[in-house]
């Protein structure tokens, strides 16, 4: 009854998972690059802060090495803007548009979609950090490289923590509310996180309240001072990452 050579004759199957993931990662990156506000958030704001606070005396800093203070802070801010703010807004809308549901019900599968998103975020964060570090060096920042592995490790931890938070708020709030909340948190962190002004001195407690401050201080210690990353920063970012990823797994919603 069924013809053997019809156009639609079933021949189902998944392409190699590596191909599936790579194509999805590429799509995520292409779509991010296409959204103007995402690019501004990702590069425009950090650049402005880096050049503004790093090269002028526009803000009061607790040190005379302005670039040594500002550049690591801007790197930490960029990780937050991409992994948390951008990711939360994008994921919230993708949920609203049914994209998560549809892609989860494709050969990509749900775990595949989350993996592709994670890799895309890591690619973006990597590209941005390299670009901003180069601008910083051109502007006169002279980083210490002995502690680079520790700086990279805390950055991965911070990225994981932000991703978990982003997926969490994109799941529990409506897309519009997610956008407002993620933007508000970004602005508050920018002000209070010790990026272009000194952070409020809360001692080690500050690291646990403000993951951005913990990350920024860890990067300053490692890259500007060439010193070990403070234990409280390690601990804070580890706790944030574990808690936010656990919560995201528990409450993540596909539709």
């Amino acid at each position, binding site marked *: 009854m069924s*013809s053997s050579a019809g*156009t*639609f004759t079933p021949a189902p199957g998944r*392409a190699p998972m590596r191909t599936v993931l790579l194509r999805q990662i590429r*799509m995520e990156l292409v779509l991010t690059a296409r959204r103007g506000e995402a690019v501004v958030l990702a590069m425009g704001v950090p650049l402005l802060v880096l050049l503004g606070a790093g090269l002028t005396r526009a803000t009061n800093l607790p040190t005379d090495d302005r670039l040594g203070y500002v550049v690591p802070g801007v790197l930490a801010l960029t990780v937050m803007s991409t992994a948390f703010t951008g990711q939360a807004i994008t994921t919230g809308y993708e949920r609203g548009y049914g994209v998560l*549901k*549809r892609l989860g*019900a494709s050969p*990509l*599968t749900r775990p595949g979609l989350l993996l592709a998103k994670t890799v895309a975020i890591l690619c973006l964060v990597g590209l941005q950090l390299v670009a901003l570090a180069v601008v910083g060096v051109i502007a006169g920042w002279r980083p210490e490289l002995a502690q680079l592995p520790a700086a990279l490790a805390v950055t991965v931890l911070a990225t994981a923590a932000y991703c978990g938070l982003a997926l969490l708020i994109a799941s529990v709030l409506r897309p519009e509310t997610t956008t407002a909340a993620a933007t508000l948190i970004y602005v508050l962190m920018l002000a209070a996180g010790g990026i272009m002004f000194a952070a409020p001195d809360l001692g080690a407690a500050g690291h646990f309240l403000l993951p951005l401050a913990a990350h920024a201080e860890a990067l300053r210690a490692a890259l500007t001072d060439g010193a070990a990353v403070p234990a409280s920063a390690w601990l804070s970012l580890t706790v944030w990452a574990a808690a936010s990823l656990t919560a995201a797994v528990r409450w993540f919603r596909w539709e």
Partner: protein
Amino acid sequence: MREAAVEVKDVVVRYGGVVAVDGVSLTVPRGSILALLGNNGAGKTSLLQVCEGFRGPDAGSARVLGLDPVADHDELMPRLGIMLQSGGVYPWATAGEILRLFASFAANPLDTDMLLDRLGLRKFAKTTFRRLSGGEQQRLSLALALVGRPELVFLDEPTAGMDVGARQTTWELVENLRADGVSVLLTTHLLDEAESLADHVVIMDAGVVAATGTPAELTAAAGIDLLRVRADPGLAVAELAARVGAKVTESTPGEYEIAGALDTAAIAAALGWFAAEGAQVTAVDTRRRTLEDVYLALTAGAAR
């Protein structure tokens, strides 16, 4: 013998305290088209969500291509084509991009240009999804469901929002799918869609199966519901009505309408009465009940 494409048994779906699907069973044989017909809120989409593995049933069971749609989700997905009722696509991706993305997920994808041509979307290949009209978005969703050459497709109101031409194209495509051996489960509230496409129709109303059968069975069971006879004017219609047990009116002089569920014996009795009256019958015409009549009778309570 291979298992059925879809086997649903006594499925119940609840949302909070609301029962959306209340004990539905159905089977989609391989290579056939089954239409789930019902009003909005009849439970069609909820049942489809269970088959697609988006949620498990609150009671009962669903097997799709012999697999559990929730537990075996990742294994099942490459074999299914899913068309959601709306959305599901990045608004800023172009039609061509998203179709090529889905094609790249498949081991043996269809040619994407061919598919765009078949669905009349070629000229929109570089148009972003959000700039497509509702009907164009629907056609792209259909293309996404088909590009991986699935064994079974789930189409949720596939022609909603399409103009007449696009609807015709879609119907032809769905018939092509069956001819090539693809199984289809679709939901619709369009009677002509169910009647012209489906091998089997399941009419759902308020979460339960109200009727099931082939379109011919559903309409044949209902039989003829109107007999028009042209004969001499002024005959005693009350006498005829009593004889055949149906409502009889002389709409215009000499035009008699006998309305009701008429079997062969009733029709013979009616014509026999005209003969016994010595009336000259010059025309006889019957109207068979359509799926629409059956549907409206079954869903009268819920429709309003």
